[in-house]
């Protein structure tokens, strides 16, 4: 009886369609926001335990950025049902767009740069989404690899993209928002964290709004049965392309942040290779297809788990690093399989089931 929804009646449609219709959920949500926006930054500023940099750079930033990308891919795969393995390439578009913008317009706010990078990526995503009208399922997944490999090749080959530097590496110069540096080596942990957090919350909010309304329903209609969707008036190409566009927009934002805020320097083949596309797909599926909350916990899982495993095996148990690394692969692989067997609909579904249990607890009948 900890978790209750009875006695919580809705009298307007607006209240019925709100994101967290149950009061307890709403309270949990505000608590998490308060922790994310107040408690964690305070801890970072005070450098509790001396680990502010480690926590920000090794855990929080990758988590926030991957969560943004994961929401993006979930829109395409989870909501619109279009399987894509080109995400790494799209992240690269975001990263290189932000690099070109940062170096061409030194005075432009990094916030604008990140959004513009997303917009450019959206354009590229729409372009590579065109074949989706004819190609479906795994064939489409493999087809999107064409985007992945071509984009990586292009950013490696065309020198203009990396300002003709000798090696083709791009490095993020220092840029700021409202006077706070968020890129470059001197940016403070809390500034980088908050910048990414604001973007994640923004992206999640927009994604939630899009998916609960007309456009989201048209995506899901295409996903569930494209022919029926077309017959009730959903234009397939336009709908699929809108999903490609929005998805790439978010992924592009993530790519820009990944390069500019998190890594600080990147090389396309290494930072945005095919492995990234797979990793992102993992997050989406482990988290739960068609769930924004799932995207976020999927990202958390895939970012935290290897770090955690490593810290336990190397830090606590003092195993040799190579054995630990091999076991990390074994464990990650096994956990993925176990999760899929236990709950193919992802962590989000597991969470829902847990809530249903809690609702009846302690009187299950």
């Amino acid at each position, binding site marked *: 009886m900890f978790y209750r929804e009875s006695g919580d009646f809705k009298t307007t449609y607006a209240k019925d369609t709100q994101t967290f219709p149950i009061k307890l959920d709403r309270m949990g949500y505000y608590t998490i926001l308060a922790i994310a926006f107040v408690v964690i930054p305070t801890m970072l500023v005070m450098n509790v335990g001396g680990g502010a940099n480690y926590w920000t750079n090794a855990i929080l930033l990758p988590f926030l950025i991957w969560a943004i990308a994961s929401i993006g891919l979930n829109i395409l795969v989870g909501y619109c049902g279009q399987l894509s393995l080109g995400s790494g390439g799209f992240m690269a578009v975001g990263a290189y767009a932000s690099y070109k913008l940062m170096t061409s317009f030194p005075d432009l706010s990094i916030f604008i740069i990140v959004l513009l990078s997303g917009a450019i990526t959206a354009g590229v995503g729409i372009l590579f989404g065109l074949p989706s009208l004819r190609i479906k399922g795994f064939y489409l997944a493999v087809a999107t690899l064409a985007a992945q490999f071509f984009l990586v090749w292009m950013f490696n080959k065309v020198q203009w993209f990396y300002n003709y530097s000798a090696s083709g590496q791009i490095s993020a110069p220092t840029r700021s928002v409202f006077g706070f540096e968020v890129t470059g080596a001197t940016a403070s942990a809390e500034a980088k964290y908050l910048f990414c957090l604001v973007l994640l919350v923004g992206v999640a909010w927009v994604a939630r709004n899009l998916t609960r309304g007309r456009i989201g329903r048209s995506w899901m209609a295409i996903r569930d049965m494209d022919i029926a969707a077309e017959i009730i008036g959903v234009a397939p190409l336009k709908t699929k392309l809108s999903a490609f566009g929005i998805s790439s927009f978010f992924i592009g934002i993530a790519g820009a942040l990944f390069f500019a805020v998190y890594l600080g320097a990147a090389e396309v083949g290494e930072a945005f290779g095919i492995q990234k596309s797979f990793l992102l797909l993992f997050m989406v599926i482990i988290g739960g297809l068609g769930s924004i909350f799932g995207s976020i916990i999927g990202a958390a899982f895939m970012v935290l788990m290897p770090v955690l495993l490593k810290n336990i095996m190397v830090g606590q148990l003092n195993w040799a690093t190579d054995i630990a690394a091999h076991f990390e692969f074994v464990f990650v692989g096994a956990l*993925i399989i176990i999760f899929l067997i236990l709950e193919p609909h992802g962590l989000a579904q597991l969470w829902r089931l847990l809530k249903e249990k809690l609702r009846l607890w302690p009187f299950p009948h």
Partner: protein
Amino acid sequence: MSANFFYTIEVIANGLMTGVMYSLVALGFVLIFKASGVFNYAQGVMALFAAMTLVGIQSGQVPFAHLINVIFGTHLDKFGWEVPTFIAIILALLVMIGFAFIVERYILKHLVNQDPIILFMATIGLAYFMEGFGDLMWGSEIKKLDVGLPQGGNVWLESATAGWADGFYGFYLDNLDMWATAIAIVLVASLIAFSNYTKTGRALRAVADDNQAALSVGISLRTIWVIVWSLAGFVALVAGIMWGAKSGVQFSLSLIALKALPVLMLGGFTSIPGAIVGGMIIGVGEKLFEFAIGPYIGGATENWFAYVLALLFLVFRPQGLFGEKIIERV
């Protein structure tokens, strides 16, 4: 005839044979997809694992030596014997069959009737698992694989054709590639014979056509799965030997799966001849493009061009070259 003409032919011939090498990997995908609808991403890692196992057995390596040494402080390395190649291949094959049993018992059985994408993800999980497991078992250093196949350009062909045109140095064909082509042809022929003329083979086809119908005539799906995964393990072993002979056995061997995907796309996920023909088209296409256009746009085009070629093809034929036609109904 100018030298360029002969060189073009040479590029095409080498493309064909490289394509066959891609097909060897693609075949494993097709076998599993056809019989169980699982898109087995782990096929590349299976090839790596099979090759590692073969080398390990052949050279008498102690499995998990490093792990045992770390835990017990011992200094195990090798047993000190060498197993003849043929026996080692048989033993490696047995390991792959055992692996097929494990996959069926602990993974597939629990994922019956799930969405294809879930099964696909499970095989990626499997790929991770095997990657770590293989390294734990046999170590991650590079290993030389030698099963007695000849390597290097065919001297006879080269000297017989040299001087056909001004500035033409004779046709270059790699002996190993020719062997691989021959083996691939034998492999495909025997797979086709197996599926057409044996009881098990017919059962496999029945399952491919209609799961339910096959079940209702008493074919155990679980047995079928073990058989196709064993077959795929066998194909992986062959691919692992061929590729491993070229480059040594090491991690990157698993990445050849990425070269098999455009082949699959082009040939169709369900067709064995499609895998071969698709491989040849991709092989020739990417080599010719690199030969003719590559120098003008900076080279290293093969990775993406293979996919773009397959993509262009799919736009006109969404089910691939030999795939079953997709019929949409309402």
